[in-house]
């Protein structure tokens, strides 16, 4: 229907109808009779006495007639009423809601406060737009009648539970409460204050979870009340793509929208999506900062690898350049690398920053405890989204990493000794290796410090918590107490490596370490399957888990992969059975990292399985030369690389928590020497709070879940000094960074390049009766947004009935006042 016709029918008819009573009234005024009247003095006196009342009555009558006719016309031409309301709102500044139904309204506001909402253009951020709009919505509600719920669309990090157990109801409810900022409250002032106080969270959008909460809130609304759902977001690809038609959560999205729509339709409403994003958005982001070493030994050099990406909307085609800088521990800024040339929506990988040993070297007072260094990488010029213009990484610098090697078969002959070569490889750093360098100074390449013991010495050790990794090499049996201490050690987050061998009592291992799938041993052991003859043919290794850190080292090229798969050096191995049936645990699966390429097929050679917070790696062959020729026959350094990488992987459990995403919980196991009377945590804003350690069994640890801001957090263990004062015992830092997903400011579009509105319509096209109200920043609140009952046919009929009642009342009143008294 053309606009002029909508206006003519929609607005013209109700207005013309409203004029009818006025016209009738005016015509009536011209139709009267004339009478000569003698008793005029009495008539004038009566008129003077009643003039005001008569005028009021006449006015009320006229208004009643006009109101009745307008209501009647409105019932027949509702679109005209919408026009009138729009006109009243825009032209007269009247509140939209003040014109709507008297039914209480429950406004459920889903407010996207994810990190991307900090994107700024023309001096205004998306979130400021959202906040302004949200305030205007709340302003339009009526105090004491309408209610507001506010749901934050930023993701809430839920800390994993030990063993992967499901959240309890109480925990789930607590998490929900963190997402729902205000629940169906009549306190509009509180809502206004809450919106004003809300800041952009440095986390991802989780719109599906937010909509689920909105659904829960909407469904709590009494049937008689109107409900409105308004989703305010920047509609970026990163936050909404998964909800699109081909997205991973599309089905769930449609389901929750269907439920919402069903409830909203009862009042004639439909969900409203309000887009506060900017067109032509572009953003340079540092999306990854990594270190070549998980833990850096004092005197080692390290390489920092940086990824920079230029996210841009489709219309942005020009590239740009950026200069990167870094600073260590808040020191002076230093540039590195060349100017980076950026192309829209392309990533520049592995921009390398080499840190010399002196950059990270421990200070004298740190030489015993080690230290954590914060390396901050940032762009020279900030851009529209400042939060991702810098990124930090915390590197642990340690004097050494203690590794306990239990030699099951000590022997003076290195070829016959079980751990000679292994200890040499792992402890290669202990004897500094001269390396060609411009300065000519020796450079340390591993931080490991090897402590070798015999099996019988294990009983004398209280625990293994002073080590970061324990290696059992061809150890025949283990006492029950040793097994218990090993379990405690691994559960705390450390690594255990078990090498097989001819001395190993596999039945005792199966009983005490495998424990039917519940113990430390990742697999159930069987008899050896190869040939123990030193002249027998060997078999090569086959990677089974390409994304495993140990394998990844060799996966860079065919050449490097050949180092792993080339040598045919494993002659003998033990047949094993991976956990199956009741022994299998889906939450801690046994992963075959390396296999052995045998004529009978691939046999598991290196299997990994988690235990508590730590990991256990089982090798189906020996650490020494008894069952294989790793050390002497493979000429390419395979065992050294393999075992060093394995050690780096297993000893870096603490490092896993050194670089977190916003919201992730930080944790640290406290060794005996780490225990202190007091622990203080300082966040990036400088706020300090005391942290109380917790305990899991015999293991004490510190957990901290308040990583809401990106930046570097510092935990300081305080010791008592003389005189009752405290002093720093040790300190550890960890970095929290923005999730790179939120850096992607590309707008949500479909394959045809149409905008978010089209994507949403496509996604929800199968929903019967759903009207997608999509509006962009700057637009007035449109039809069906807060109207709730505005478009409700039933309400208009109700109004029509009221109108007719007015007419009847007016008629009756007229009859009463005109009835002559006898």
């Amino acid at each position, binding site marked *: 229907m053309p606009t002029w016709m909508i206006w003519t029918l929609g607005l013209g008819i109700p207005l013309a109808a409203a004029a009818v009573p006025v016209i009738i009234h005016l015509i009536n005024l011209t139709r*009267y009779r004339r009478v000569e*009247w*003698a*008793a*005029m003095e009495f008539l004038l*006196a*009566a008129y003077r006495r*009643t003039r005001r009342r*008569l005028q009021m009555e006449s006015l009320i009558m006229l208004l009643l007639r006009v109101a009745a006719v307008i209501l009647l016309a409105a019932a027949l031409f509702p679109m005209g009423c919408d026009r009138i309301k729009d006109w009243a709102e825009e032209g007269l500044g009247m509140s939209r809601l003040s014109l709507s139904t008297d039914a209480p309204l429950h406004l459920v506001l889903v407010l996207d406060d994810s990190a991307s909402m900090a994107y700024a253009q023309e001096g205004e951020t998306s979130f400021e737009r959202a906040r302004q709009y949200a305030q205007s919505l709340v302003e339009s509600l009526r105090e004491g009648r309408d209610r507001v719920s506010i749901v934050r669309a930023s993701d809430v990090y839920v800390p994993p539970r030990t063993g992967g157990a499901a959240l309890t109801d109480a925990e789930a409810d607590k998490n929900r409460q963190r997402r729902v900022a205000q629940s169906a409250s009549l306190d509009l002032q509180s809502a206004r204050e809450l919106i004003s106080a809300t800041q952009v969270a440095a986390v991802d959008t989780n719109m599906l979870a937010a909509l689920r909460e909105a659904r829960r809130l909407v469904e709590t609304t009494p049937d008689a009340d109107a409900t409105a759902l308004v989703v305010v977001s920047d509609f970026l690809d990163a936050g909404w793509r998964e909800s699109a038609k081909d997205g991973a959560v599309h089905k769930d999205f449609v389901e929750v929208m269907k439920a919402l729509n069903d409830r909203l339709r009862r009042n004639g409403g439909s969900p409203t999506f309000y887009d506060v994003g900017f067109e032509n958005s572009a953003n340079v982001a540092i999306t990854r900062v990594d270190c070549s070493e998980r833990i850096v030994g004092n005197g080692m050099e390290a390489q920092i690898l940086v990824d920079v990406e230029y996210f841009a909307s489709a219309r942005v085609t020009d590239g740009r350049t950026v200069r990167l800088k870094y600073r260590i521990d808040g020191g002076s800024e230093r540039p590195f690398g060349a100017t980076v040339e950026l192309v829209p929506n392309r990533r520049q990988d592995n921009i390398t920053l080499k840190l010399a040993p002196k950059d990270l070297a421990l200070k004298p007072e740190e030489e015993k405890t080690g230290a954590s260094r914060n390396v901050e990488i940032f762009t020279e010029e900030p851009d529209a989204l400042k939060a991702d213009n810098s990124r930090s990484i915390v590197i642990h610098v340690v004097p050494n990493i203690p590794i306990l090697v239990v030699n099951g078969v000590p022997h003076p002959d290195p070829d016959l000794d079980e751990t000679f070569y292994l200890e040499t490889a792992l402890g290669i750093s202990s004897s500094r290796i001269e390396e060609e360098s411009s300065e000519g100074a020796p450079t340390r390449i591993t931080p490991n410090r090897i402590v070798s013991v015999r099996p019988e010495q294990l009983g004398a050790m209280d625990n293994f918590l002073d080590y970061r990794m324990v290696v059992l090499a061809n150890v025949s049996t283990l006492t029950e107490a040793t097994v218990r201490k090993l379990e405690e050690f691994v559960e705390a987050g450390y690594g255990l490596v078990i090498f097989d061998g001819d001395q190993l009592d596999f039945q005792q291992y199966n009983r005490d370490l495998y424990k039917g799938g519940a113990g430390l041993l990742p697999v159930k052991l069987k008899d050896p399957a190869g040939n123990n003859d030193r002249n027998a043919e060997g078999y090569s290794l086959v990677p089974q888990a390409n994304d495993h850190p140990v394998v990844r080292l060799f996966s860079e090229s065919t050449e490097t992969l050949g180092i792993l798969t080339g040598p045919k050096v494993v002659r003998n191995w033990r047949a094993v059975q991976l956990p199956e049936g009741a022994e299998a645990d889906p939450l801690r699966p046994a992963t075959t990292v390396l296999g052995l390429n045998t004529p009978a097929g691939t046999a598991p050679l290196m299997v990994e399985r988690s235990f508590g917070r730590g990991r256990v790696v089982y090798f189906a062959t020996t650490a020494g030369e008894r069952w294989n020729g790793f050390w002497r026959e493979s000429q390419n350094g395979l065992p050294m690389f393999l075992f060093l990488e394995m050690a780096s992987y297993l000893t870096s459990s603490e490092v896993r928590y050194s670089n977190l995403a916003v919201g992730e919980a930080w944790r640290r196991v406290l060794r005996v020497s780490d225990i202190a009377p007091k622990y203080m945590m300082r966040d990036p804003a400088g706020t300090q709070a005391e942290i109380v350690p917790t305990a899991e069994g015999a293991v004490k640890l510190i957990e901290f879940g308040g990583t809401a801001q990106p930046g570097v957090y510092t935990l300081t263990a305080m010791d008592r000094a003389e005189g009752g004062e405290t002093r720093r015992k040790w300190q550890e830092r960890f970095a929290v960074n923005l999730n790179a997903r939120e850096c992607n400011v590309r707008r949500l579009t479909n394959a045809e390049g149409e905008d978010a509105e089209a994507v949403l319509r496509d996604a929800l096209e199968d929903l019967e009766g759903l009207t997608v109200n999509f509006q962009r920043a700057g637009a007035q609140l449109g039809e069906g947004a807060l109207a709730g009952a505005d478009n409700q046919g039933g309400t208009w009929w109700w109004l029509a009935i009221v109108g007719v009642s007015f007419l009847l009342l007016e008629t009756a009143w007229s009859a009463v006042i005109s009835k002559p*008294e006898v």
Partner: protein
Amino acid sequence: MAESFHQLLDPAVLNEIRHLEVTARNVVEGFISGLHKSPYKGFSVEFAQHREYVQGDDLRYLDWKAFAKSDKYYIKEYEEETNFRAVIVLDTSESMRYKSGEALSKLEYGRFMAASLAYLVQKQSDAAGMALFDEKLYDWVAPATSHATLLRMLATMYERKPEKKTNVGEVLVDVAQRSGRRSLVMVISDLFDNIEHLRKGLEHLAARKHDIIVFHLMDHQEREFKFDRLTQFLGMEGYPDLLVDPRALREAYLDEVKNFSAEVRRMCLRSRADFTPLDTNTPLGVALQAYLARRMGRRGK
């Protein structure tokens, strides 16, 4: 006055007068024939003598004071009034022209009433006179017993056109002065005048020992105010016009009328005047009956 008499020669005027006279005679004779004869005797006001009571005498005329002194029954006898004077004061202002529907106008009704009263008075061989007024007293017919006087009164009433304001208070003062001897003054008017003026006039008459009867004559519509649609009321006697829905004003208007009548009634009581409200729908006989009943009741006191 001579000119007025000359007009009486006009057959149309004569016919009209005749009509008035005939109507008045019919009204009075019809009225009288329905009454006991004693009202005849009782119409005089001058005491004559006592005589002993005989059976059949009207007990209303028994002299109870004489009975108390002598223990005998005496009847008070009155001389027939031969010099009784009655002056009929008729309002002929513009407001008396009003009539509603097919009813007589107030002036027409007043003329019939005045003629009837005059005829009734002369029928008893008393002298009847007339005063016509609007803003002032302009026609004065001195009381006389002759038929010619009656005809003159009728002609005077006929020729007067109602077009000026009412000033009844001043006129009553004038009537009091002109009447000279004690008279019965019968005022026929809608009394649409300043109430203070009316009060002064009545007090003046009462001070001169005149007996007063006030016939407050209004149209039936003026008393009931039963209009049913938007009406423009055109003011008479210089009042402004008013366009109004009469249904909404009725209650207040009736209050005003009621208050005015009550005030006039109070003034009449203070001046020992009889107050008789009439409307133009009331039969003339009923009006006369109401008058005579009041008159006789007054004499009996």
